[in-house]
């Protein structure tokens, strides 16, 4: 009955379906590839933008400076070479615009054609000088010494405490405050959301009668469906002033405002997954407890919750993951200060918010751009760890049943 044509069609469609089936794997691989391709480039760069150099006097024994030290020198916080391991000599900070302090217009030439030469002269004369200027001003027999810059390192990227990616002359690329901001905001959010989420999951699965449950379901679906910008907007106009007033703060845009908005947003995840887990508790287990004279509540917290604990923890972890990756709502309400937070009541900045806020302004392929992609990699790894943990928990659950 089956013609060979039919069989061919069957095989063809199956092949087509298989190709579609591989799409997610393909997408994940592509995402990893592109993210890391752009992000990894960061570690081949120095914190000084291409096209500019930092130079010292030839007699200066200092061989290397970190981005942090350079920033402090140019901010006049470090004023003597001794502080960075050099001779006892006060530092003279020089950038191109300062040239007119040293030379008259005539000496620089009508079309500034003598500038490279003058810079070179200056470099030779002043022993304590540190200069920052475009590479094109390096003259032929340059009398200074170009400072070799260390490349950005992964450990520095993760451990440094300052994030000023556009700082001149050296970008400060420490994401620790961003990582901590992300963790603070999302963990506090889950702390707020968890009691409500669990209570609601238990309520729907165990306490409420079916009709009430049918009303709550669409409510939760809707809560999940409201776009994050709308949450952000609501947070900006309602929650931020509320937090400011309640805690009597100078600004309401704080980590707590973000956590509150995120808590609302994480609720649907927590509720639906925990409810599922609770419902999966075998009826026999429940009946056994009740038959021993336990009340419904005792049965819930002594049998049902322990039985569904892996599902509940999966829900919690997924909630954290969602919160960590949330961008717009957080961007709009947390105040975005890249400082190491010591309390939830100060402005904070998360990784996704940083990417969203800064990528538009960064030059394609530049240092800042690469740093933001590297930041994306960090976020990706963080959420991947979370997803894998959840996979592991649910695999265990299946195995143990």
């Amino acid at each position, binding site marked *: 009955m089956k013609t060979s044509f039919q069989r061919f069609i069957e095989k063809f469609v199956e092949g087509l379906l298989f190709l579609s089936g591989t799409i997610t794997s393909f997408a994940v691989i592509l995402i990893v590839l592109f993210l890391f391709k752009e992000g990894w480039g960061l570690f081949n760069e120095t914190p000084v933008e291409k096209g500019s150099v930092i130079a010292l006097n030839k007699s200066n024994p200092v061989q290397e400076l970190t981005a942090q030290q350079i920033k402090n020198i140019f901010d006049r916080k470090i004023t003597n070479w001794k502080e960075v391991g050099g001779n006892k000599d006060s530092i003279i900070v020089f950038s191109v615009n300062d040239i007119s302090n040293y030379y008259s217009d005539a000496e620089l030439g009508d079309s500034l054609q003598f500038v490279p030469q003058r810079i070179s002269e200056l470099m030779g004369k002043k022993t304590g000088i540190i200069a920052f200027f475009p590479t094109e001003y390096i003259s032929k027999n340059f009398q200074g010494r170009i400072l070799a810059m260390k490349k950005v390192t992964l450990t520095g990227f993760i451990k440094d405490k300052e994030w000023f990616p556009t700082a001149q002359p050296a970008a400060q690329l420490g994401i620790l405050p961003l990582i901590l901001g992300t963790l603070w905001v999302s963990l506090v959010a889950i702390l707020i959301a968890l009691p409500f989420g669990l209570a609601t999951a238990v309520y729907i699965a165990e306490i409420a009668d079916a009709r009430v449950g049918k009303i709550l379901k669409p409510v939760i679906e809707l809560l999940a469906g409201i776009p994050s910008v709308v949450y952000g907007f609501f947070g900006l106009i309602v929650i931020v002033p509320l937090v400011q007033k309640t805690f009597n703060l100078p600004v309401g845009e704080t980590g707590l405002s973000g956590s509150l908005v995120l808590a609302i947003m994480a609720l649907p995840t927590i509720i639906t997954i925990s409810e599922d887990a609770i419902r999966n508790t*075998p009826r*026999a*287990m429940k*009946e056994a*407890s*009740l*038959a021993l*004279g*336990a009340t419904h509540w005792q049965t819930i917290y*002594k049998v049902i919750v322990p039985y569904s604990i892996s599902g509940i923890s999966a829900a919690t972890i997924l909630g954290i993951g969602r919160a960590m990756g949330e961008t717009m709502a957080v961007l709009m309400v947390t105040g975005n200060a890249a400082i190491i937070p010591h309390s939830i009541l100060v402005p904070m900045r998360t990784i996704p918010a940083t990417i969203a806020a800064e990528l538009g302004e960064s030059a394609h392929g530049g240092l800042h751009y690469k740093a933001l992609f590297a930041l994306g990699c960090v976020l990706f790894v963080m959420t991947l760890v979370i997803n894998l943990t959840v996979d592991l928990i649910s695999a265990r659950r299946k195995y143990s049943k």
Partner: protein
Amino acid sequence: MVKDYVKKPKVMAKDVNLYYGDFHALKGITLSMEENTVVALIGPSGCGKSTFLRCFNRMNDLIPSTRITGYVMVDGKDINDRSMNVDELRKNIGMVFQKPNPFPKSIFENVAYGLRVNGVKEAKFIEERVERSLKQSALWEEVKDKLKKSAFELSGGQQQRLCIARALAIEPSVLLMDEPASALDPISTAKIEELIYELKNQYTIIIVTHNMQQAGRVSDKTAFFYMGELIECDDTKTMFTNPKHTRTQNYITGRFG
């Protein structure tokens, strides 16, 4: 003899009707049983044995849309009365289910569960009671060295005996058993039967079974259900040798069901 005459029934059902929504599952059941006896409920699948059994600890309450009429009395009290505390009733009526269903806890905690939920706090008392219940259910020797281990690590037969110990720990006066041996191998089944025989001295036991030999071995009285009706109930010996109804005879001799 006079004493027997005045002996009040321990549990009693009078004209019990039960509906699952529109479905009439129990039709006017009347049955009573005395203290320290074993009654076996037999009948073809779906005839309402489990439903009837679950009337005595109000387990059917858990299923929405069930409705019950008539009286179910335990110790002379109507258990469906508003003044009845369900959890106190259930404390007094132990239940063993068809499939072993231990809690996801240690062996010890499984047995201690009933005590803990009923407000017992003294550790010593609990320990003694756990040991006694496990001995009663003939499991003590096998588990005494691994009380802290998860109950799921036991074999099916051991799990079922653990569930019996769990039920015994709170000293109920009535024990309901719904096909307690149907999921077990012959050796475990024999152990459970032996156990029932011994427990009879202290408990009133209602047991559902599909196994005629088992009913014959363990029960004093047997009740035959068919399509939600109680066809007849009599001493087990009489039932098996001289049933009044042909339906009963057919079922017992294996001609249908």
